Structure formats: structure tokens, C-alpha cells
């Protein structure tokens, strides 16, 4: 017996790109009824980001949009118009959760503040996700993923070489996903409380603070022990094998022993400077060349198996194609096929969680305005004439 755990939850998402939409997607895939509200005509800017099949831009075929908006229903609505605002209020009246990412103060300025929406729906939870929060000197700052990642504390001297260039950002949109995932935790907790008490809450998420929370160890160390940020040398780490990069983590004695055995217990590894973690770290510049030479003479897979069979953590740096075809993920059915009317049947990255009885069951992302009639007419009671007029006047 399996069931969709978030069935019965009604969520209105008015978000763009990744953070807010990903937060809503996490819940939609688990059974919440998510209505995604997009601006008419152009929709969510993620529709224009791609990648696209054949590199031909198409609002319904952007990989980014299709992935972060699975399982939702979609309507178009210009909430800045008076009629649009009234329709949005109607949607929020029946909702458990509103997720939005408008610049600070803009929704309140058009009469859609939390207090106003909660006045007619006290159990409403509302999450507002912005680059730098609702207050403070940077609160009005615009930021794309590059800006967000680079302002979040993710880089430190540890990962930079001697080269005269800036640290590279995290791949894809990772800092945006981070904010969405963090927001989803608070949303779920607030919804649970609202279901128990009838009282909702307003949640403020600064993407920068979501990043900082993930870097809390490094940021804490820098704040409390300034000047002690140079770490000791580490043994292993990123190495180049005969056919690609691989990560080895072998700091502890136990993991180091596994590495030594895998290397065939060379004589140098029995020297005094390999005695314990501290000694190895201090002599990392002596040890690393040996590990590098050994790694260069073997394949990624040989080293991966040799180390893991001895209990030493390691992992090849896999590209997207290798991950897609990795036997481990195949066995766990991580990728799932979804059929979309415009993009066709494609395999999507799935969920990291396997539940004993709950069902994770995604559906495809909505076409732009696909559910306008269902929601405005069937659910909110607009007539066909209303729908035609709203479309003609650009409200939907």
C-alpha cells in the first residue's frame, strides 16, 4: 500500500528560475497540488534558459524549466493588474502555502502582503525568497546565480590555486537549488504546525543566508579564529588517473591503511613521516607525489574498487553521461521517464529518498497556461466569457 504523503496540500507558487520553483517541485512530486502562476506570454524566464533539443529555443522545451517544475499545474496571471490581484487573492484563500520570489516589498505594494492574504486565510503559510532578504543594505540588490553563489561564502583560499583568476562558481544553479531546498524545510515545518493549530506563519528566506548556513563551519572558523584559515596539507584529495579524475579521502589511520594496501604497501609508506594523521599532513608535499604517480598508472575504476574494497572512501569524478549510465543509479532506478506533450519522453533525475511505503510520483511540467480553464472556470467559477475577456485584456 503506497500513498502520496502531501496529498491535500494546496500550494500557490509565483516564482521564477530555480529557487522558488524547486521548493514547490519538491512538494509537488510528493503529491501536493501546486499551482504555478506565471506571467502571461513569456512565462517563467526558466522557459528561455534551455538547454533545448537541437539548441532551438522553445518555451515548452527548456530542460531547466521542465526539471524544476514537474508535477505542477500551470496558470498565467498578471498579478499587477487589479483583476489579476483579485484572482491571486482568490487562489491564496484556499491555499495552505504561497511561495513567491518577488523583490522585497513589491507584493505588499500591490496589496498582496502576508497580513492581507492571511486576513482571509489564517492558516496560510507564505514563503518569500529573495537574494539578500527583506532588509539590510543589499536587500534591493539583483542577483543571478553567479552573483548568488559568489556572495555566499562558498569559496575560500583552500580551493584556489596560485592563479590570478577568481574562484569558479558552483556548477549549474547549485546555490539557487540550495535556497529552494532550505525553503522547503521551513515550509514543511510551518505547514505541519498550521495543520495542527490553524495558524500559519510568514517565512523570509535570504538566498545568501541559505548559502551561509551551508558554509557555517568555515564561516564560523573565520569569524572566531581569524588568521587561522590556512589548513594543514591533506593527503589524497583530487588525483588524476590514467583515464580521468578521482577523489580519495584517506586522512584517518584506518582509511590511510586501506590506501597503503591498495598501493601494494610501498616502503616509503612505512617511514616515520607517515606515522599518523598529523605527521602525514605535515609531510603531505612528500606523500602526494607518490600517490599521484600510483594514481596515474591506474584507471579510475581500478582505484575506486581497490580502495572501496578496503573500506577507504573514494569516488571517480563522473560527468553527466557517466552518472546517467552508472549501474548504481540504474539499480536504484534514480532516473525516471516522464512524457511531456512538447518535449516528448525523457529521463529525469529522481528523488534521493526511497520510502518504505510512501509514493514519490512525479508528472510532467505544465505548458504555459495549460490549466487556466481548469482553475479559473472549474475551480474559481469564472465563466467562459470571463476567461475570454481575461485572455483578451492580457490578465491571463
Amino acid at each position, binding site marked *: 500500500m503506497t*500513498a502520496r504523503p502531501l496529498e491535500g496540500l494546496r500550494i500557490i507558487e509565483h516564482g521564477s528560475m530555480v529557487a522558488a520553483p524547486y521548493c514547490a517541485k519538491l512538494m509537488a512530486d510528493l503529491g501536493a497540488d501546486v499551482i504555478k502562476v506565471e506571467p502571461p506570454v513569456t512565462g517563467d*524566464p526558466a522557459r528561455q534558459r534551455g*538547454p533545448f533539443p537541437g539548441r532551438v529555443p522553445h518555451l515548452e*522545451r527548456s*530542460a*531547466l524549466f521542465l526539471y524544476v517544475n514537474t508535477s505542477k499545474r500551470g496558470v498565467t496571471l498578471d498579478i499587477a493588474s487589479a483583476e489579476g490581484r483579485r484572482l491571486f487573492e482568490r487562489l491564496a484563500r484556499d491555499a495552505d502555502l504561497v511561495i513567491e520570489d518577488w523583490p522585497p516589498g513589491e507584493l505588499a505594494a500591490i496589496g498582496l502582503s502576508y497580513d492581507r492574504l492571511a486576513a482571509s486565510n489564517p492558516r496560510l503559510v507564505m514563503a518569500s525568497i529573495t537574494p539578500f532578504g527583506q*532588509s539590510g543594505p543589499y536587500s534591493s540588490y*539583483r542577483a*543571478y546565480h*553567479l*552573483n548568488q553563489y*559568489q*556572495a555566499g*561564502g562558498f*569559496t*575560500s583560499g583552500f580551493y584556489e590555486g596560485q592563479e590570478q583568476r577568481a*574562484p569558479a*562558481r*558552483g*556548477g*549549474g544553479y*547549485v546555490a539557487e*537549488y540550495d535556497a529552494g*531546498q*532550505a525553503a*522547503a524545510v521551513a515550509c*514543511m515545518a510551518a505547514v*505541519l*504546525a498550521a495543520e495542527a493549530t490553524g495558524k500559519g*506563519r510568514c*517565512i523570509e528566506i*535570504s538566498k545568501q543566508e*541559505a548559502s*551561509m*548556513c*551551508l558554509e557555517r*563551519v568555515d564561516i*564560523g572558523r*573565520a569569524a*572566531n579564529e581569524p588568521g587561522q584559515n590556512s589548513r594543514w596539507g591533506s593527503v589524497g*584529495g*583530487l588525483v588524476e588517473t590514467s583515464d580521468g*579524475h578521482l577523489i580519495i*579521502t584517506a586522512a584517518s589511520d584506518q582509511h590511510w591503511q586501506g590506501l597503503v594496501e591498495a598501493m601494494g604497501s610501498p616502503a616509503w609508506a612505512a617511514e616515520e613521516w607517515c606515522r599518523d594523521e598529523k605527521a602525514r599532513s605535515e609531510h603531505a608535499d612528500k606523500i602526494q607525489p607518490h600517490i599521484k604517480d600510483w594514481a596515474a598508472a591506474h584507471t579510475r575504476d581500478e582505484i575506486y574498487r581497490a580502495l*572501496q574494497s578496503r573500506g577507504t*572512501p*573514494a*569516488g571517480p*569524478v*563522473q*560527468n*553527466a553521461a*557517466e*552518472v546517467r549510465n552508472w549501474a*548504481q543509479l540504474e539499480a*536504484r532506478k534514480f532516473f525516471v521517464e516522464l512524457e511531456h506533450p512538447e518535449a516528448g519522453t*525523457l529521463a529525469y533525475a529522481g528523488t534521493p*529518498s*526511497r*520510502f518504505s511505503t510512501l509514493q514519490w510520483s512525479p508528472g510532467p511540467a505544465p505548458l504555459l497556461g495549460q490549466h487556466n480553464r481548469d482553475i479559473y472556470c472549474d475551480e474559481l467559477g469564472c465563466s467562459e466569457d470571463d476567461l475570454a475577456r481575461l485572455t483578451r485584456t492580457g490578465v491571463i
Partner: protein
Amino acid sequence: MTGSTAGSLPGPLTGIRVIDFTWAWAGPHGVQLLAMLGAEAIKIESMTRLDHSRVRSLMGGASQTGPDAASIFGDLNAGKLSVRLDLRRKEAKEIVLRLAAMSDVAVQNMRPGALDRLGLGYESLRKVNPRIIMLSSSAVGDSGPERTYAGYAPTFAALSGIADITGYRDGPPIPLSGSVDLRVGTAAAFTVLVALRYRNRTGEGQNIDLSSTEVMSTLMGEAFLGYEMTGQVPHRMGNADDLMAPHSCYPCSGENQWVSIAVATPAEWCALRNAIGTPLLADPALESEAVRRRRRDEIDAAIEGWTRARTTGAVCAELQQAGVAATPLLRSTDLAADPHVQARAVLQPIDHPVLGRRLVVGPPWRMDGAAIRGRAPLIGEHISYVLGDLLGMGAGEIEALSEAGVLN
């Protein structure tokens, strides 16, 4: 409303009790998030198997001199309670099972099967409490040919695909940082809450198998779908972007100071061009994004010529005023002193009897009832609360267990 005060409502998870078997970074942070939301988190610890982050380690720095003087542990376990239990002892297992009977959630991140071998896996907990939710997080999940494989944050990043798309095109892949573990913890916290909702409605508990590596793959899902659509393997590209140009970090005055600038719309391009005023950028051909992508290097050089003579603060203030996304590059070492971070009091002072007063990064959200509720526990600090107040043991009984070495 700030993260340092809980506000007028109780924590949204008030009344939820979590047994925390986790160690290292990922699991502890996941439970720490639940504690920030009001859950009572009881960490099961042992001197015979110390949490890595309590052990003096290379990562710990000079302040780490013993299990209770562990700053990393403090950053990952704020607001929790701690008991010491040697889980190899029958009496300790009985205590855990009694606690499980009155708890809502258990979280663990030992290697797959380890907790089952101790007789404390999901099946054992379920026998005493069918409503319990158990989440186990591991390197690559509790099924599949590699289920026994071990990993840490950088191997999750490597296997998941994210390291391969991070870094410069002509440089090595970058496995992000220890933050990878905290992403796994965030996913764990969300998943537990989903199962809690279902339990609230049905009374049914849940067993959850979370793969750390898969968490990272889900945070780059568009890359897999793009590959699926086009057959082209995405590659790392430093700070550049497939579509947007300019899109990079530019040096400012001072040593190793950078500003990130990204332009997506025609309006943003015009604003940037006008702010910089260099004749080269006035070329009307550059109004096309495709042309800007082709002439990226030339444009970057012109922008750099302008930013180099200015501070990051001045560049950001001027460009943001004009409507351009320009923000300072803030490393982990820069944030505590940043005026915005200070204005929002993101770092909060927490007093600790051994470490003294330390600044700790607050919760990733602000709402009534969400806060860092206190410092991390000393090891075994709450034995009398958990065994006495919760389980109803007398002082003599606790003393006897202690003398028998069970509370070690």
C-alpha cells in the same frame, strides 16, 4: 523579525522528539535544522565512538582540544541534548528502545546495515513504536551494487556529477566543499517532515533510505535532462554562462577583491554600458546577446579596465543603482565583516562553557518560532534529563548503569 529571537509563536516542531544517532557533518546538520524549528533532538553519543567532529582533527583548528572543546561540533549540533550510551551493551540498547517508544523520529548515517547489526535498525524500533520515522543516510544509498561503499562530501560531489561541471574549462574539476554534507542534511530534514505529515494523518511510520550522492545529483537535474535532450555532455565553464554575456568576476582595487557581474536583459546591458561609458561598449552590435557571447573577451577586458580602479563596494552600489546584477565576491573569510551580514545579524553569539562566546551562523530562514535554541551539548550532558525525567529512572539506577560502564 530576526533569527536570534524565537518570536511570539512556539517552534513549528515543538513536541516532536528526534533520536539523533548521526555523526560527522551531514546527519548532524539535518537534525540541527529540526532543532532550530523546535524539535527536541537527543544525540546518542559514546566515548567509545566519538563523533568525528568532536575529535581533534586537521579540520578543527587550534580551538579543538577535546570532545567538549570542539568548534565544528558546535556549528553542527546547536540546540541538541546529549546522552552517552555504549550501544554494544544490552542495557544501552534497552534504553534506546524505551526512548524510541516515546519519540517521533530517528536519524542515522552509519554505513548501511551497521545500526541493524546493533539491533537498533528500523525493524527493531518499529516493534516498540510503529509510528516512528527512521531516516538513514549513506554514501550511495542502501541498495544497489555499491551500497556498502563509503564516502565523504568530496566523493559525493565527484560521483554525483556536480564536481565535473564546477571549475574552469582548462582547470581541474572542483568537488565544492564541506557544504556538500550540509546539503545532504537539508534534504534529510525535508524528507523527515514529509513523512511526519503522513504519519500525522495515518499513524503510519516510515523507513527512509537517503543517498547522499543522489542528493547532489538532484541539485543539477537540468544538466542530466539537457544531456538527455541534446546528447551533449555539459562541461565546466568557470564563471561564464551558456547564454549570458557579460557573466564573470572582475577584479577591483585592493588585493584579491572581485565583483561578479551578470547581464541577462537588454535593459541590463544598456545600464552597464552607460555606467562604464567606454566607447568600445557603445558599439550597437553588442546589443545582441549572441554577438556579446562571441566578443566576450573584449567586453570583459573593457569592464575590467573600469572595475580595477574602483572598490567592490563602489562598483556594486553604482551598478545596482543602475539596475545591473553586481555583487561582491564574499569568501567564507569575508562574510562576518560584511556590512549587510552585520546589519542582518546573521552570525549570532552563543556562549559555551568550554569554548567561550562564539559566533555561529543562524538558521537559513526567518520566521516566528525558528531560532538557534542554544549551544551544542557537552558529551553526555543530559543523561539525567533523558534517563531520569523522560524514562523515569531513579538516581541510584542511573548511577549503577554509569558504574557498569553503560553510560560511557
